[in-house]
């Protein structure tokens, strides 16, 4: 929202700080300023001038003009405007001498666009009367910081804030004496007061439609509104001032009385912007007996618009329900200056003020205009001004500093609150323009008082509170431990997005139905939420191998799985990836096994019968901790990773955390009697898993077996492998006898044979 400094200074008496400082104060006390900018820069030093003569310049479409300026005497300059002609009264801007088309051109004649008066750049400005315009400064306020303040969408509301902050008198631009008197001349019926609490209309006759005076054009242009004609410009002026959105209909194009009703399903309206809109029963329209003539609070219809031939005007000043306007405007993708204001919940008490203001402004822009009768003012029951109790002790406790009662009262009154002093508390009456949704509870008043005294006057204070250690978030701590291990083992942490495409899901063979779908994805290829972190891993491999021959990374993130009902399940996973451009890939898989063991020393690996298409068929293994399946290690299938070797560890952190919590960390007494060891070498087939052999050994594990360790692997000429294990046996209470050791050894040999293996 743009605010004109000139406009504000007309509404705040004796505004004695510059725009920059004003913007700073507004930021500190009311809403965020995004900066200030000069408007109409060329007006500095500009003056009226009359063209004395124009002669053509050879080989140029420009002309050489002699002009008589009011402030700088006679000047010669080059002008290319088509309307530059002898006798033209226009505006001269001194810019110094410049060589143009072979002629020393001293200054320029300016168009309305160049001067910031309007968008008209067709020719130089044709000036009637004086040029009473000065360069202005525009303060841009962030719209987001105004969403809760319907009153600040106009200059009068902002002027009230400025006056309150600076302690200056506020000038009301509306004089209610200007309100036309007499019976209403416009027939109005409201069908739904819920959607239109109030509709006020005034008939004006004797209207002459034409261009607006320059001051009006200039003001609108300065805050980003375009001049249309004098009548429409007045409606925009009022919108930017009060900030009541209004609309002018050509009275002769309205058939019968005005009806405010829901649109019929499929009802159409050709709008002012030339677009045709198809409406639904959700939308509110202004209609006459022939059909819709405007979409309520959003845009007027083309057929009833003000045109050059218009002489009678129905001036609408109505109040529409905020969220209904917002819905319609959102559905039609049509945000207008009116809809933006109505969305913020405008004050229904403002409609008559706008009529009074219109009567005054119409007289200025179209002298001789006559108001026919008074306004037709139809409304339902309007809410009474709310009264909020404000306990002064409570206020102090909320703010954290004391403020004198008189100061509190002064602040609230400057902001137009009614205040009744009730001793320890105040009874605060909310002004109608703050009561629509902005202010309803005492906490809202804390803000009013706080921001006006200035939050910088509140000293920081340490609260008195018990010193207690907060509960520890075990999951976060666990995740951080894993992060520490992974990074120490050489893996760099990545963060990947949660969004994936159907093509990505298909690529890994993940069923699409298991995904949660995004209804409004940022792009069509980001329409699903990831059910595995492997999509990101694949991308990380593909991207990074362009730059590195070997690399390691990991991510901790959430898999999101759709559930039949309720929120989806979010599963914390850790994925680690290792890529090597050369080599046979075995080292990478081993490294991931080591990483898994670094996280939990008891991790073990078991072959899996489950086939996943993207995995190397002979290079995948399930990872267990205790009896819990906690993850998987695999190498990507060459079809998914056509170059190099990419190995992945994927851990499901929920079960892993449980399994780790289940491992008792308790001291075992150190043995006092010596242990004995014996080695067993087992002949195994080419593809027999060491784990299978170890399991067979374990099946004969006696009480005295302390551990079974894999030692070495040795390949025989016939392709078979010799797998060696070392078994350590011992007892806490005595040294084992040779017989006991042999018995254990024999038992294990028996078990191995039973499992179909031979001893080497």
């Amino acid at each position, binding site marked *: 929202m743009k605010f004109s400094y000139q406009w504000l200074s007309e509404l705040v008496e004796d505004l004695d700080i510059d725009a920059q400082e004003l913007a700073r104060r507004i930021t500190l006390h009311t809403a965020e300023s995004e900066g200030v900018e000069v408007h109409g820069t060329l007006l500095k030093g500009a003056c009226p001038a009359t063209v004395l003569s124009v002669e053509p310049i050879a080989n140029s479409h420009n002309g050489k003009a002699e002009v008589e300026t009011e402030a700088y005497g006679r000047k010669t300059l080059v002008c290319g405007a088509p309307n530059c002609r002898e006798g033209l009264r226009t505006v001269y801007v001194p810019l110094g001498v410049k060589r143009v088309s072979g002629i020393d051109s001293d200054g320029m004649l300016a168009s309305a666009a160049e001067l910031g008066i309007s968008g008209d750049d067709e020719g130089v400005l044709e000036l009637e009367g004086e040029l009473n315009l000065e360069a202005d400064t525009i303060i841009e306020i962030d719209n987001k910081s105004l969403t809760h303040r319907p009153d600040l969408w106009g200059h009068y509301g902002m002027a009230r804030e400025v006056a309150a902050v600076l302690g200056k008198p506020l000038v009301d631009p509306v004089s209610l004496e200007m309100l036309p008197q007499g019976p209403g001349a416009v027939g109005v019926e409201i069908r739904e007061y819920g959607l239109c609490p109030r509709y006020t209309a005034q008939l004006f006759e004797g209207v002459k439609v034409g261009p607006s005076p320059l001051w009006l054009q200039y003001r609108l242009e300065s805050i980003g509104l375009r001049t249309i004609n004098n009548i429409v410009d007045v409606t925009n002026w009022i919108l930017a001032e009060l900030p009541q959105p209004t609309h002018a209909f050509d009275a002769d194009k309205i058939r019968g009385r005005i009806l405010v009703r829901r649109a019929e399903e499929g009802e159409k309206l050709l709008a002012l912007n030339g677009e045709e809109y198809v409406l639904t029963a959700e939308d509110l329209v202004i209609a006459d007996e022939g059909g819709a003539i405007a979409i309520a609070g959003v845009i007027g219809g083309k057929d009833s618009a003000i045109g050059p031939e218009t002489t009678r005007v129905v001036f609408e000043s109505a109040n529409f329900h905020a969220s209904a306007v917002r819905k319609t405007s959102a559905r039609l993708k049509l945000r207008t200056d009116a809809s933006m204001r109505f969305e913020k919940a405008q004050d229904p008490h403002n409609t008559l003020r706008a009529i009074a203001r219109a009567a005054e402004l119409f007289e200025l822009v179209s002298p001789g205009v006559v108001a026919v009768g008074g306004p037709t003012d139809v409304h339902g029951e309007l809410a009474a001004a709310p009264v909020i109790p404000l306990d002064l002790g409570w206020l102090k406790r909320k703010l954290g500093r004391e403020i004198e009662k008189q100061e509190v009262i002064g602040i609230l009154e400057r902001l137009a609150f009614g205040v009744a002093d009730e001793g320890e508390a105040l009874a605060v009456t909310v002004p109608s323009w703050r009561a629509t949704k902005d202010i309803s*509870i005492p906490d809202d008043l804390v803000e009013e008082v706080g921001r006006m005294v200035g939050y910088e006057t509140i000293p920081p204070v340490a609260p008195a509170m018990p010193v207690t250690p*907060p509960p520890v978030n075990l999951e976060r701590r666990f995740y951080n431990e894993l*992060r520490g291990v992974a*990074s120490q083992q*050489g893996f760099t942490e990545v963060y990947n997005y*949660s969004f994936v495409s159907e093509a990505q899901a298909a690529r890994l063979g993940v069923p699409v139905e298991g995904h949660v779908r995004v209804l409004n994805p940022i792009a069509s290829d980001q329409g699903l939420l990831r059910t595995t972190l492997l999509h990101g891993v694949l991308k990380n491999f593909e991207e990074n191998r362009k730059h590195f021959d070997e690399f390691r*990374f990991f991510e901790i993130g*959430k898999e999101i799985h759709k559930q039949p009902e309720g929120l989806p399940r979010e599963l914390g996973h850790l994925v680690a990836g290792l890529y090597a451009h050369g080599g046979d890939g075995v080292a990478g898989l081993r490294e991931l096994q080591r990483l898994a063991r670094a996280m939990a020393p008891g991790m073990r690996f078991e072959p899996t019968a489950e086939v996943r298409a993207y995995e190397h068929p002979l290079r995948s293994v399930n990872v267990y901790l205790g009896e819990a399946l906690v993850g998987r290690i695999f190498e990507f299938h060459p079809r998914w990773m056509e170059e190099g070797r990419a190995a992945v560890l994927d851990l499901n952190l929920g079960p892993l955390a449980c399994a780790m919590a289940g491992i008792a960390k308790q001291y075992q007494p150190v043995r006092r009697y010596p242990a004995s060891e014996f080695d067993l070498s087992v002949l195994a087939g080419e593809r027999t898993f060491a784990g299978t052999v170890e399991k067979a050994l374990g099946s004969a594990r006696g009480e005295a077996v302390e551990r079974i360790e894999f030692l070495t692997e040795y390949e025989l000429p016939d392709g078979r492998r010799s797998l060696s294990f070392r078994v350590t046996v011992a007892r806490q209470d005595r040294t084992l006898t040779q017989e006991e050791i042999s018995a254990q050894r024999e038992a294990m040999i028996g078990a191995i044979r039973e499992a179909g293996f031979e001893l080497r």
Partner: protein
Amino acid sequence: MIGRIEELAGQTLGRVREAGTPEELEAVRVEVLGRKGSLAEFGKLMGKLSPEERVAAGKALNSAKTSLEAAYELKKTAFESAALEARLAREWVDLTMPPPGIVPGSLHPLTRIQNEIESLFFSMGFAALDGPEVETEFHNFDALNIPPDHPARDMQDTFWLEGGHLLRTHTSPVQVRGMQRLGPPLRMIAPGRVFRNEEVDPSHEHTFYQLEGMMVDREVSIAHLLYFMKTLLGGIFGREVTVRLRPGFFPFVEPGFELDIQCMVCGGEGCPVCKHSGWVELLPCGLVHPNVLRAGGINPDEYGGFAFGLGLTRLVMMRYLIDDIRWLQSGDLRFLKQF
């Protein structure tokens, strides 16, 4: 006999001193000082002497033994230290060479900053909570006093999911979950991933990280909020920071503020970083709206609170002077290995 002893001693002393190798030295020791060595032989002959002669010969024998043993030890030590010197001289290692094996990886800058801030808050008694990334409309909006027709619910900001759910647009839903879980009084933070339906460019992301903070107690004032913010930011930036509050509108707080810190680049004088205002907008905060307390099952007549939201992504970018937000989720190790 004494003469022979002395003669042997003299000769042996020479041999000890001139021994060229430890083996040679050892041979001399065995021959002369050994249990069956020459000196021992003399000892056996002592019995045949008269008592007077025996005393004199004994003395000579002992003195020879002592001096030979001393010479032997000396020579042996010399050999040992020479051997050690020689070993040390051979064992040159180039310790300027980098070590083999694993080069540690690194943590994501967002993880680093989260951990840092988490421990800062932990030290001030704030529990760290988590909430789901997929949220209900209730937790993301209604419970936070954002009514159904509020513009914040517009399609363009929120990723809506089938089943009426959504991707949380802020970490604020954890406020309500936290209040329900911990009950008053409480101090909590909730760092996490949030989502906004925004086009991605160097300064906008649809996925970013926030940290929500909340304190609820019998009496909580703006002065307390200021105190915590100042302490927190001093901790984050490692020095005293000057902060200011100005009005800001967020439905879940009342009053609501934007908290600015004095520009650390120019110290408040004005520079391009702070757009010549001397201040940098850092975080939204405010006193918890009574409706939000109610949604969390807390009676606003008995308790009050403050809440704030810290943009972790933005903080990371400030801390490491990262000029393009897209690096953070690029997975590009050329970027990530720098941390």
